[in-house]
């Protein structure tokens, strides 16, 4: 499916299943480290500001929430993720505002050395979003897709490299 959408990697929510076959183009998303993480690339994901700690890789943000509280808690290198799934249900005015907020969160990430991540938030195949569609959103809000893909690749590489270094030592 990732090839069909033009994506090199996709994040899959972990349901603690051990029956999955490790694949290179899959990154598991989990709320804490489970044994399955020994076989897959993984990211620790949180959507609760209170549970945000040093182990969290990715924080799922509501674009309409105030950024003051987040600013106090974020650390350098944290991924800040916006899910598109919730925006589909928004009415016209709020959908327009959502696009504006995407840009403002991107600027927030730039100034706080965090990684901006746009995700589909898909729970089924039909909700998945192609690379070209992600690029359209980025273009419309005024973010260069080329820079976005470069930064996200470097961030993912740094995350996996840090883990390998940890395993070796």
């Amino acid at each position, binding site marked *: 499916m990732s090839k069909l*959408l033009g994506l090199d990697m996709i994040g899959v929510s972990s349901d603690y299943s051990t029956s999955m076959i490790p694949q290179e183009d899959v990154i598991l998303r989990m709320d804490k480290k489970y044994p399955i993480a020994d076989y897959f690339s993984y990211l620790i994901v949180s959507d609760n500001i209170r549970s945000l700690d040093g182990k969290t890789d990715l924080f799922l943000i509501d674009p309409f929430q105030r950024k003051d509280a987040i600013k106090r808690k974020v650390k350098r290198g944290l991924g800040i993720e916006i899910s*598109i799934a919730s925006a589909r*249900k928004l009415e016209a005015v709020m959908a327009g505002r959502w696009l504006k907020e995407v840009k403002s969160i991107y600027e927030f990430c730039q100034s706080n050395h965090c990684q901006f991540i746009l995700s589909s938030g898909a729970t089924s*195949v*039909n909700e998945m979003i192609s690379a*070209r*569609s992600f*690029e*359209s959103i980025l273009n*419309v809000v005024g973010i260069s897709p080329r820079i976005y893909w470069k930064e996200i690749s470097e961030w993912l590489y740094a995350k996996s490299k840090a883990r390998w270094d940890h395993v070796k030592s």
Partner: protein
Amino acid sequence: MQKVRQDGIMLNHKEKRRYVAIMYDENGLYRPFQIHEKIVVRFRELFGIFQSELAMLKLYDSEFGNIMIVGCKLKYLDYFLVSLILTQPALTAVSLSGTLKKLRKNVSRLGVRNIKNNPS
């Protein structure tokens, strides 16, 4: 190619179009013409009626089960794709081409009908 007119030179220029193959939920409530209407409404809401008319969003028959094809002017492709992903029900653009013939060929190569059984 140029046509010379009395009031100057007019370029015989046809604006480029792009055709997008869109995967939709076959078991959902909506048929392709209703989904097309929903995308057009979202486009109008986000980018305005004038832009929507200029984009010339047109529905085509895909000849595949859960795939529909929508054409739009290349200049408005980003607006169209944003409207598509911000439309409820969820839709996925699976292929894009400059001609309908090539797009149908691309879609037939994808084996889209098998996707639901192979989520990874």
